[in-house]
């Protein structure tokens, strides 16, 4: 059984985010958590306010990029950080709820803004043990 987790993977100038989980939804949610971890420790972010997100794309991989870009947009536009992601995927349509709080520079010490999710190393694939992995490089 695949345990839910996220990790960052190496890219020379930028940084890769990877989410792993028993379902595609869980892998997408973990990849978003990896985004937050680029800026700050996700444990410091209180899941107080909710923001709904919806995206559609022609395939799984573009859907992942769209999803991460939607989270990046909400972070930038609302000046928020998010630590909980409830994701529902039906076909290539995604609906989600983000939970987080306004950026508090003293508390979160946010390291760097994320500019966008790229299509470099972009993959959404089943794993050998029946789970899912979702990853790409993000530009910071």
């Amino acid at each position, binding site marked *: 059984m695949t345990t839910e987790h996220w990790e960052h993977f190496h890219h020379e*100038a930028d940084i890769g985010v990877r989410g792993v989980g028993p379902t595609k939804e869980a892998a997408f949610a973990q990849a978003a958590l990896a985004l937050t971890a680029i800026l700050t420790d996700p444990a410091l972010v209180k899941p107080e306010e909710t923001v709904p997100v919806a995206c559609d*794309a022609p395939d799984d991989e573009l859907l992942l990029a769209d999803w991460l870009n939607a989270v990046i947009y909400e972070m930038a536009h609302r000046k928020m950080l998010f630590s909980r992601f409830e994701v529902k995927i039906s076909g290539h349509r995604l609906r989600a709820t983000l939970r987080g709080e306004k950026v508090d520079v003293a508390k979160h*010490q*946010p*390291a760097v803004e994320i500019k966008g999710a790229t*299509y*470099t190393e972009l993959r959404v694939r089943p794993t050998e043990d029946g789970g899912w992995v979702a990853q790409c490089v993000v530009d910071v």
Partner: protein
Amino acid sequence: MDISRFTRQSEFAWRIEPTGKMRVPVIIYASEQLMRDMDNKVLEQAANVATLPGIKKASFAMPDAHWGYGFPVGGVAAFDADEGGVVSAGGVGFDISCGVRTILTGLTRKDIEPVKKSLADSLYREIPAGVGSTGKVHLERADMDAMLRGGAQWAVQQGFGLAEDLNRIEEQGCMKGAEPECVSEQAKRRQKDEMGTLGSGNHYLEVQEVTRIYDERIAGIYGVRQGDVVVTIHCGSRGLGHQIGTDYLKEMAVAAPKYHLELPDRELASAPINSPTGQKYLGAMRAGINCALANRQILTHLARKVFAHHFPEARLKLLYDVSHNTCKVEEHLLDNKRRPLYVHRKGATRAFGPGHPDVCSDLRDAGQPVLIGGSMGTCSYILAGTTESEGEAFSSAVHGAGRALSRHQATRQWQGRQVIDELAGRGILVRSPSARGVAEEAPGAYKDVSAVVEAADHAHLARMVARLEPLICIKG
């Protein structure tokens, strides 16, 4: 990188002939050491760029090239619209028109030292920097569109800076052909409160000392003297540019089959220049360029206000403003004919040589200033475009050092406080809202910018004019 695969065209130019679907060769400018240290991905990505329709002459990589997304960072490629050439959102990048501007202060280090700490504190207070920061200029719809059309010219009309600044900005501060209606509502919302903000990561405002002059004649024309203090700003088109990149990357990737484009990598998302998607992107991207030019103009105004408080007699004169993530239509000599080409520079600086009509008349004899940023503890450089550069990579040169260590590796090696204290010991005052951000940007995490600049000089891409070292660094 395995250099045995290359033909050494000259001491600083390495070439690979086209194979497979490549339409042109790959040419990388670098010293042997920089080549050996370069990631193999640079060649892979430059070779992918060489397969795009309408590419002319070669797919180039500058001495600071590193693994990017789609195009290598440090990549230069020019396309002919009449031969099915493409424009690529991935070939410009997310931070449209990210660039560097350097401002002369007429002050020396001796003037700065007695007030250095309070100057650093005032700059940090007045220059919005870091994640979540907002500017003092808030743009509603009509003003946003006017800014996207007018760039730095709009900013000057609003009272930010001086009319004389515009001559010292590429495109005289206003990129023609900008189409605000091609920019999404999301992009505009993302920018609403971000005008006049520095951003984060490798973006900064520095007060620097000119510590060495390499070319007295050109330095004289530029008005740069040893011991002078200058202000340098490195930042881009903020959230608006990032969102334009995001929007059009997807639009181009989805539209590629419609245009019969076979992309070896989705990140190379492109559209024919002569297509509705290509034209829409160009309109939006040019609006992004204007956003970056307006942003750096507002930041210049803020820096001038701080200097006016500490040095009422000082007159801060803009030396030049360059952009290093763009696609611009330029005339270049190809097969003995001058032709308009769409030149993509992703992490590369335009470097027009002496006499070029697009360089302002008072600097024309020297060639265009080429401004190269360092990182906190490292040097920055002023170079000048050369006549020979036109015959190399369409008058293009380097843009900076590039990372040697990833952000993770950097935070494992350094702590923010320790970096700030060490730099303070060397007389460099760093002000930043994020200790982790400082650790990630530690000087040791970057490649040797001096080696990169020397390679650009040896390869005749640009000529070294002056070296700058930081005294104060405001970091996002």
